[in-house]
């Protein structure tokens, strides 16, 4: 009878389409908004994510996010290097600067300075040019998405920072950051010339832990001996995300949109599915008269609900990922499709369809088989 149920559903073209569209729309809204949310969260920790082969980030104890680093002292670097279990520790600089283009326009950019000798923290994925070129005089590598945002910057183009020359020697595939500013990587020594700063210029210290030694143990040691905070990239990213969630209202905004998407979707999908079941009440009554048990009818309706949920889910996710694909992860829109999001939206849409199915089922269960004589 489950096959009969699916035929009943699928061969009622118009209603079937409108139900599947309703569910698709609901899924799309949920996944799309969820993508924007995860996209923003990803962006908020993008710089941490992009800085590869680092076990620990060391920063001032008052720091709440990667966008609000406080200057460390040079002596901190030596003290961290002395901590037992630290393989290496390098300087890392991040600062906002204004770049002057050849045509005289000014653009706000983020400048990241990486250790001159080791280049640790340099872009890990290049689109054009090579990280090795960073050793050249005045060299900087800009991220592709950021360069497009300021109207395209070509390799070889010269910029001026603070009356100092800069030459773009390559383009990286860095993840877009929260402020959507172009990111220019350069050597540490270069960065502190481009960016006007106070006395001290060390934003954070990047640490590699010796092989075989527990990262948490080393982190605790660094904390104890320096009074600084040492966190794994993931911890630091979540520290940043928590801050963004807490102080920017993004969570409330997007949460509201997701809730609205869910409610609107639930209304559309639930309503159309419910009305499908009610429209078919007489068919169900006929089946009941012919001796279909409550269990059989329940299975039929739930299978219909499942089918609708699965189709709508597939199409909704398909649509959302099309949008995500065309926009991200480095496009203009901050969208990022995660497995968690897929699971959550699947849970949401299936419970939604099941809910509608159960309501419809109640209605069918209450129907007298004698209704079929009317």
């Amino acid at each position, binding site marked *: 009878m489950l096959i009969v149920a699916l*035929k009943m559903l699928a*061969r009622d073209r118009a209603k079937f389409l409108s139900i599947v569209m309703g569910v698709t729309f609901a899924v799309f809204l949920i996944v799309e908004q969820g993508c924007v949310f995860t996209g923003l969260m990803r962006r908020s920790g993008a710089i941490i994510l992009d800085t590869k082969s680092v076990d620990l980030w060391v920063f001032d104890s008052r720091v709440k996010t990667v966008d609000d680093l406080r200057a460390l002292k040079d002596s901190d670097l030596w003290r961290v290097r002395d901590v037992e279990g630290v393989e290496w520790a390098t300087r890392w600089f991040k600062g906002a600067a204004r770049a002057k283009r050849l045509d005289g326009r000014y653009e706000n950019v983020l400048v990241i300075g990486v250790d001159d000798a080791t280049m640790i923290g340099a872009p890990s994925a290049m689109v054009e040019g090579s990280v090795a070129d960073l050793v050249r005089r005045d060299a900087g590598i800009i991220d592709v998405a950021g360069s497009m945002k300021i109207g395209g910057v070509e390799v070889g183009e010269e910029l001026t920072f603070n009356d100092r020359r800069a030459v773009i020697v390559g383009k990286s595939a860095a993840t877009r950051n929260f402020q959507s500013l172009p990111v220019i990587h350069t050597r540490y020594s270069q960065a502190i010339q481009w960016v006007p700063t106070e006395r001290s210029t060390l934003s954070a210290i990047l640490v590699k832990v010796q092989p075989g030694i527990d990262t948490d143990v080393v982190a605790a040691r660094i904390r104890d001996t320096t009074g600084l905070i040492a966190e794994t990239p993931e911890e630091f990213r979540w520290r940043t995300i928590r801050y963004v969630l807490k102080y920017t209202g993004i969570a409330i905004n997007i949460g509201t949109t997701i809730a609205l998407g869910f409610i609107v979707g639930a209304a559309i999908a639930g309503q159309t599915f419910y009305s499908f079941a009610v429209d078919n009440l007489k068919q169900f009554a*006929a089946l009941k008269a012919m001796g*279909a*048990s*409550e269990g059989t009818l329940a299975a039929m309706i739930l299978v219909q609900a499942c089918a609708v949920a699965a189709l709508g889910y597939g199409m909704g996710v398909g649509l959302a990922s099309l949008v995500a694909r065309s926009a991200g992860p480095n496009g203009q829109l901050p969208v990022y499709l995660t497995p968690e999001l897929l699971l959550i939206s699947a849970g949401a849409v299936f419970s939604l369809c099941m809910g509608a199915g159960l309501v419809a089922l109640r209605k069918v269960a209450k129907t007298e088989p004698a209704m*079929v*004589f009317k």
Partner: protein
Amino acid sequence: MSAVDPFEKPAPARATGIIRMPVLRARGLVKTYGSADETVRALDGVDIDIMSGGITMVVGPSGCGKTTLISVLAATLDADEGTIEAFGESLHDMDPEAKTTFRRRNIGFVFQQYNLLPGLSAEENVEIPLILSGRPRRAAREAARAMLVRVGLGDKVASRPSQLSGGQQQRVAIARALVHQPRLLVCDEPTAALDGDSGRLVMNLIRELAVDPERAVVVVTHDTRLYGYADLFAVMSDGRIAKIARKEEMSSNSVAEPHP
């Protein structure tokens, strides 16, 4: 109720069915619709025996309780009062689940509005009773096709109800009602939505295919032109059985001959 013993005289030669024995015995059926202040007593103390081997026609004016009666007899509606013994079982004692099983095993339905599932082809509709009783798909499909051949729709097995005329749809419904060999066939105004010729075709099919010594057939109608198909009449009026009559006892002007 004027009790008439159908075994008093032998069935007339014209009737194709030979009424055998009561397989369904209802006593004191009462069914009331509506709320406290406005109630309709659709069944007001009905006693009736339904015999196998022929067609019992329930006749009477619109609103007299015919549909309610066969709904109750077919175990799709619970009476407020009264008892029904059917095929040796007490319907009035059954819980809903047992009634469902009873219907699945014993009853075939033909409705005025056909009530075919519009999404399903003729053969898919006809095999439903077999699938419900757990017949393997292939066997169900074969039996459904054979049944459609018997109602003259061997070339329409794949047609959807919307592609069939009313008469053809009702023939599919007859195939569906008989495919699982039920012991009771109930037909509520089976020809009311059809033109005269289609109606006669449908009644002829019921006559030829449904009447069986092992099966009771109840046809509800208020169409006097169909009276010729009956073996026995239950004449209803205001929720009661006014009389039980054999064909020759019905007033001659209301009885038309069948057109086989």
